[in-house]
Protein backbone atom coordinates (compact mmCIF):
# COMPACT_ATOMS: atom_id res chain seq x y z
CA UNK A 1 0.00 0.00 0.00
CA UNK A 2 2.80 2.42 0.97
CA UNK A 3 4.66 1.55 -2.19
CA UNK A 4 1.60 2.34 -4.22
CA UNK A 5 1.36 5.76 -2.57
CA UNK A 6 4.96 6.74 -3.46
CA UNK A 7 4.37 5.53 -6.97
CA UNK A 8 1.37 7.81 -7.19
CA UNK A 9 3.21 10.92 -5.98
CA UNK A 10 6.10 10.16 -8.30
CA UNK A 11 3.82 10.09 -11.28
CA UNK A 12 2.22 13.35 -10.18
CA UNK A 13 5.58 15.10 -9.91
CA UNK A 14 6.52 13.80 -13.30
CA UNK A 15 3.42 15.27 -14.80
CA UNK A 16 3.46 18.66 -13.07
CA UNK A 17 7.12 19.69 -13.19
CA UNK A 18 8.53 17.94 -16.20
CA UNK A 19 9.02 20.22 -19.13
CA UNK A 20 7.61 18.70 -22.29
CA UNK A 21 10.16 20.60 -24.35
CA UNK A 22 12.94 18.64 -22.63
CA UNK A 23 11.35 15.23 -23.00
CA UNK A 24 13.62 14.59 -25.91
CA UNK A 25 17.20 13.83 -24.88
CA UNK A 26 18.76 15.87 -27.69
CA UNK A 27 16.72 18.96 -26.81
CA UNK A 28 17.82 18.61 -23.20
CA UNK A 29 21.43 18.29 -24.33
CA UNK A 30 21.18 21.35 -26.58
CA UNK A 31 19.85 23.32 -23.64
CA UNK A 32 22.67 22.05 -21.38
CA UNK A 33 25.26 23.30 -23.87
CA UNK A 34 23.62 26.70 -24.23
CA UNK A 35 23.32 27.13 -20.47
CA UNK A 36 27.01 26.26 -19.97
CA UNK A 37 28.23 28.51 -22.81
CA UNK A 38 27.52 32.11 -23.75
CA UNK A 39 26.67 31.03 -27.28
CA UNK A 40 27.26 28.03 -29.52
CA UNK A 41 27.23 27.70 -33.28
CA UNK A 42 25.29 25.19 -35.34
CA UNK A 43 28.25 23.19 -36.63
CA UNK A 44 29.91 22.86 -33.21
CA UNK A 45 26.60 21.71 -31.74
CA UNK A 46 26.20 19.17 -34.52
CA UNK A 47 29.65 17.78 -33.88
CA UNK A 48 29.28 17.73 -30.12
CA UNK A 49 25.94 15.95 -30.09
CA UNK A 50 26.75 13.72 -33.09
CA UNK A 51 23.44 14.32 -34.83
CA UNK A 52 22.45 15.04 -38.43
CA UNK A 53 21.76 18.53 -39.79
CA UNK A 54 18.04 17.93 -40.17
CA UNK A 55 17.64 16.34 -36.77
CA UNK A 56 19.46 19.18 -35.00
CA UNK A 57 17.60 21.85 -36.97
CA UNK A 58 14.21 20.45 -36.03
CA UNK A 59 15.08 20.30 -32.32
CA UNK A 60 16.50 23.83 -32.42
CA UNK A 61 13.33 25.03 -34.08
CA UNK A 62 11.22 23.42 -31.38
CA UNK A 63 13.25 25.17 -28.65
CA UNK A 64 13.04 28.44 -30.54
CA UNK A 65 9.28 28.10 -30.75
CA UNK A 66 9.17 27.78 -26.95
CA UNK A 67 11.33 30.95 -26.84
CA UNK A 68 13.93 29.02 -24.83
CA UNK A 69 16.70 29.92 -27.25
CA UNK A 70 17.47 32.71 -29.71
CA UNK A 71 19.25 32.47 -33.03
CA UNK A 72 21.70 34.91 -34.62
CA UNK A 73 22.81 34.65 -38.23
CA UNK A 74 26.09 36.21 -39.25
CA UNK A 75 28.87 35.77 -41.77
CA UNK A 76 32.39 34.62 -41.03
CA UNK A 77 34.04 35.88 -44.20
CA UNK A 78 31.85 34.27 -46.83
CA UNK A 79 30.63 31.37 -44.74
CA UNK A 80 27.27 31.80 -43.05
CA UNK A 81 27.42 31.16 -39.33
CA UNK A 82 24.36 30.51 -37.21
CA UNK A 83 24.76 30.71 -33.47
CA UNK A 84 22.35 30.11 -30.62
CA UNK A 85 21.93 31.47 -27.12
CA UNK A 86 19.75 30.42 -24.21
CA UNK A 87 17.11 33.01 -23.30
CA UNK A 88 16.32 33.95 -19.70
CA UNK A 89 13.10 32.00 -20.06
CA UNK A 90 14.99 28.97 -21.32
CA UNK A 91 17.50 29.06 -18.46
CA UNK A 92 14.67 29.23 -15.90
CA UNK A 93 12.88 26.34 -17.58
CA UNK A 94 16.08 24.29 -17.65
CA UNK A 95 16.71 24.90 -13.94
CA UNK A 96 13.13 23.92 -13.11
CA UNK A 97 13.50 20.75 -15.12
CA UNK A 98 16.70 19.84 -13.26
CA UNK A 99 14.94 20.48 -9.96
CA UNK A 100 12.17 18.15 -11.04
CA UNK A 101 14.73 15.47 -11.86
CA UNK A 102 16.35 16.00 -8.48
CA UNK A 103 13.04 15.75 -6.65
CA UNK A 104 12.21 12.59 -8.50
CA UNK A 105 15.44 11.01 -7.34
CA UNK A 106 14.80 12.09 -3.76
CA UNK A 107 11.28 10.65 -3.94
CA UNK A 108 12.48 7.34 -5.24
CA UNK A 109 15.15 7.08 -2.58
CA UNK A 110 12.88 8.10 0.28
Amino acid at each position, binding site marked *: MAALCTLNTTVKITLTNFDKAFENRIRLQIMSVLVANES*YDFNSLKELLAVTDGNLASHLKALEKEEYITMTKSFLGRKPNTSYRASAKGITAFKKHLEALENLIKQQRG
Partner: protein
Amino acid sequence: MEDKDLYDEINSIKKIMERSTKFISLSGLSGILAGGYALIGAGIGYEIIYGNGILRGGYSIDIQLFSIALIVLLLSITTGIALTARKAHRKGQTVWNQSSRALLKNGLLPLLTGGAFILILLLHADYHIIAPSCLIFYGLALAAASQYTYGDVKWLGITEIILGLLAMLLPGYGLLFWALGFGVMHILYGSIMYFKYDRENNAD
Protein backbone atom coordinates in the same frame (compact mmCIF):
# COMPACT_ATOMS: atom_id res chain seq x y z
CA MET B 1 10.88 6.87 -15.22
CA GLU B 2 13.34 4.32 -13.85
CA ASP B 3 16.14 5.20 -11.47
CA LYS B 4 18.76 4.22 -14.01
CA ASP B 5 17.19 6.40 -16.70
CA LEU B 6 17.26 9.38 -14.37
CA TYR B 7 20.94 8.94 -13.62
CA ASP B 8 21.65 8.47 -17.32
CA GLU B 9 19.79 11.68 -18.04
CA ILE B 10 21.71 13.66 -15.44
CA ASN B 11 25.02 12.09 -16.46
CA SER B 12 24.45 12.99 -20.08
CA ILE B 13 23.74 16.60 -19.10
CA LYS B 14 26.90 16.77 -17.02
CA LYS B 15 29.02 15.18 -19.73
CA ILE B 16 27.73 17.40 -22.50
CA MET B 17 28.23 20.56 -20.42
CA GLU B 18 31.82 19.56 -19.70
CA ARG B 19 32.57 18.57 -23.27
CA SER B 20 31.02 21.75 -24.66
CA THR B 21 33.21 24.03 -22.55
CA LYS B 22 36.50 22.13 -22.55
CA PHE B 23 38.86 21.11 -25.30
CA ILE B 24 39.63 17.50 -24.45
CA SER B 25 41.65 16.40 -27.45
CA LEU B 26 44.86 17.95 -26.15
CA SER B 27 47.53 15.27 -26.48
CA GLY B 28 49.61 14.32 -23.44
CA LEU B 29 52.12 12.53 -25.64
CA SER B 30 52.95 15.77 -27.46
CA GLY B 31 53.83 17.29 -24.07
CA ILE B 32 56.27 14.46 -23.41
CA LEU B 33 57.90 14.92 -26.83
CA ALA B 34 58.05 18.72 -26.43
CA GLY B 35 59.83 18.16 -23.11
CA GLY B 36 62.30 15.86 -24.87
CA TYR B 37 63.06 18.47 -27.57
CA ALA B 38 63.54 21.12 -24.87
CA LEU B 39 66.01 18.93 -22.96
CA ILE B 40 68.00 18.19 -26.11
CA GLY B 41 67.94 21.91 -26.97
CA ALA B 42 69.06 22.84 -23.47
CA GLY B 43 71.87 20.25 -23.67
CA ILE B 44 73.14 21.73 -26.95
CA GLY B 45 72.79 25.22 -25.45
CA TYR B 46 74.82 24.17 -22.41
CA GLU B 47 77.51 22.75 -24.68
CA ILE B 48 77.63 26.03 -26.66
CA ILE B 49 77.91 28.22 -23.55
CA TYR B 50 80.10 26.13 -21.27
CA GLY B 51 81.52 23.41 -23.52
CA ASN B 52 84.88 23.21 -25.20
CA GLY B 53 83.64 24.59 -28.47
CA ILE B 54 82.89 21.40 -30.41
CA LEU B 55 79.43 22.60 -31.29
CA ARG B 56 80.28 26.27 -31.62
CA GLY B 57 79.70 27.45 -35.17
CA GLY B 58 80.75 30.67 -36.83
CA TYR B 59 77.85 32.73 -35.48
CA SER B 60 77.73 34.57 -32.17
CA ILE B 61 76.51 32.65 -29.13
CA ASP B 62 73.23 34.52 -28.79
CA ILE B 63 72.23 33.90 -32.40
CA GLN B 64 72.99 30.21 -31.95
CA LEU B 65 70.99 29.98 -28.72
CA PHE B 66 68.11 31.92 -30.27
CA SER B 67 68.07 29.54 -33.26
CA ILE B 68 68.02 26.50 -30.99
CA ALA B 69 65.13 27.93 -28.96
CA LEU B 70 63.26 28.72 -32.18
CA ILE B 71 63.78 25.19 -33.56
CA VAL B 72 62.62 23.65 -30.24
CA LEU B 73 59.54 25.90 -30.29
CA LEU B 74 58.64 25.11 -33.92
CA LEU B 75 59.15 21.36 -33.43
CA SER B 76 57.01 21.40 -30.27
CA ILE B 77 54.19 23.34 -31.93
CA THR B 78 54.21 21.07 -34.99
CA THR B 79 54.20 17.91 -32.86
CA GLY B 80 51.52 19.33 -30.59
CA ILE B 81 49.19 20.21 -33.46
CA ALA B 82 49.78 16.91 -35.28
CA LEU B 83 49.21 14.67 -32.25
CA THR B 84 46.25 16.70 -31.02
CA ALA B 85 44.67 16.53 -34.48
CA ARG B 86 45.22 12.77 -34.49
CA LYS B 87 43.60 12.40 -31.08
CA ALA B 88 40.67 14.60 -32.09
CA HIS B 89 40.22 12.60 -35.28
CA ARG B 90 40.21 9.36 -33.31
CA LYS B 91 37.51 10.73 -31.05
CA GLY B 92 35.49 11.95 -34.02
CA GLN B 93 35.97 15.61 -33.18
CA THR B 94 37.48 18.46 -35.13
CA VAL B 95 40.53 20.34 -33.87
CA TRP B 96 39.12 23.72 -34.76
CA ASN B 97 36.01 24.00 -32.65
CA GLN B 98 34.43 26.39 -30.20
CA SER B 99 36.52 25.26 -27.21
CA SER B 100 39.87 25.17 -29.01
CA ARG B 101 39.19 28.69 -30.32
CA ALA B 102 38.46 29.87 -26.77
CA LEU B 103 41.60 28.09 -25.57
CA LEU B 104 43.79 29.90 -28.10
CA LYS B 105 42.07 33.24 -27.67
CA ASN B 106 42.77 33.20 -23.94
CA GLY B 107 46.29 31.81 -24.15
CA LEU B 108 47.52 34.01 -26.99
CA LEU B 109 47.42 37.35 -25.18
CA PRO B 110 49.97 36.49 -22.45
CA LEU B 111 51.94 34.42 -24.96
CA LEU B 112 52.26 37.19 -27.58
CA THR B 113 52.96 39.78 -24.88
CA GLY B 114 55.74 37.51 -23.63
CA GLY B 115 57.08 37.01 -27.15
CA ALA B 116 57.25 40.76 -27.77
CA PHE B 117 58.76 41.32 -24.30
CA ILE B 118 61.51 38.78 -24.99
CA LEU B 119 62.26 40.23 -28.45
CA ILE B 120 62.69 43.65 -26.80
CA LEU B 121 65.05 42.10 -24.23
CA LEU B 122 67.07 40.60 -27.10
CA LEU B 123 67.08 43.97 -28.84
CA HIS B 124 68.59 45.57 -25.73
CA ALA B 125 71.00 42.64 -25.32
CA ASP B 126 69.51 42.11 -21.87
CA TYR B 127 70.12 38.37 -21.75
CA HIS B 128 70.03 37.47 -18.09
CA ILE B 129 66.25 37.66 -17.63
CA ILE B 130 65.24 35.97 -20.90
CA ALA B 131 64.90 32.48 -19.39
CA PRO B 132 62.74 33.64 -16.44
CA SER B 133 60.59 35.73 -18.81
CA CYS B 134 59.98 32.72 -21.07
CA LEU B 135 58.87 30.65 -18.10
CA ILE B 136 56.67 33.32 -16.50
CA PHE B 137 54.80 34.37 -19.65
CA TYR B 138 54.38 30.75 -20.78
CA GLY B 139 53.01 29.87 -17.35
CA LEU B 140 50.58 32.80 -17.47
CA ALA B 141 49.42 31.74 -20.94
CA LEU B 142 48.81 28.16 -19.75
CA ALA B 143 46.95 29.31 -16.66
CA ALA B 144 44.76 31.63 -18.75
CA ALA B 145 43.96 28.95 -21.33
CA SER B 146 43.49 26.17 -18.80
CA GLN B 147 39.84 26.88 -18.04
CA TYR B 148 39.06 25.59 -21.53
CA THR B 149 40.86 22.28 -21.15
CA TYR B 150 42.12 19.77 -18.55
CA GLY B 151 42.77 21.11 -15.06
CA ASP B 152 46.32 19.70 -15.17
CA VAL B 153 47.26 22.48 -17.60
CA LYS B 154 46.57 25.05 -14.88
CA TRP B 155 48.98 23.29 -12.51
CA LEU B 156 51.63 23.12 -15.22
CA GLY B 157 51.13 26.88 -15.72
CA ILE B 158 51.50 27.63 -12.02
CA THR B 159 54.62 25.43 -11.85
CA GLU B 160 56.16 27.34 -14.79
CA ILE B 161 55.43 30.69 -13.12
CA ILE B 162 57.07 29.56 -9.86
CA LEU B 163 60.12 28.24 -11.73
CA GLY B 164 60.31 31.55 -13.64
CA LEU B 165 60.26 33.54 -10.41
CA LEU B 166 62.92 31.28 -8.89
CA ALA B 167 65.06 31.73 -12.01
CA MET B 168 64.68 35.49 -11.55
CA LEU B 169 65.74 35.14 -7.91
CA LEU B 170 68.82 33.05 -8.71
CA PRO B 171 70.60 34.67 -11.65
CA GLY B 172 73.08 32.50 -13.51
CA TYR B 173 70.89 29.40 -13.40
CA GLY B 174 68.62 30.49 -16.27
CA LEU B 175 69.42 27.55 -18.52
CA LEU B 176 68.92 25.07 -15.68
CA PHE B 177 65.46 26.47 -14.83
CA TRP B 178 64.61 26.68 -18.52
CA ALA B 179 65.47 22.96 -18.91
CA LEU B 180 63.49 22.16 -15.76
CA GLY B 181 60.41 24.15 -16.85
CA PHE B 182 60.26 23.36 -20.54
CA GLY B 183 61.90 19.93 -20.40
CA VAL B 184 61.23 18.07 -17.17
CA MET B 185 57.84 19.65 -16.39
CA HIS B 186 56.49 19.00 -19.90
CA ILE B 187 57.55 15.38 -19.62
CA LEU B 188 56.05 15.10 -16.13
CA TYR B 189 52.69 16.73 -16.89
CA GLY B 190 52.61 15.21 -20.38
CA SER B 191 52.95 11.74 -18.82
CA ILE B 192 50.25 12.49 -16.24
CA MET B 193 47.89 13.61 -18.99
CA TYR B 194 48.88 10.72 -21.21
CA PHE B 195 48.05 8.14 -18.56
CA LYS B 196 44.93 9.97 -17.40
CA TYR B 197 43.30 10.77 -20.74
CA ASP B 198 45.12 9.51 -23.83
CA ARG B 199 45.25 5.85 -23.02
CA GLU B 200 41.67 5.40 -21.92
CA ASN B 201 40.59 7.04 -25.16
CA ASN B 202 42.81 4.83 -27.25
CA ALA B 203 41.09 1.85 -25.73
CA ASP B 204 37.64 2.70 -27.03
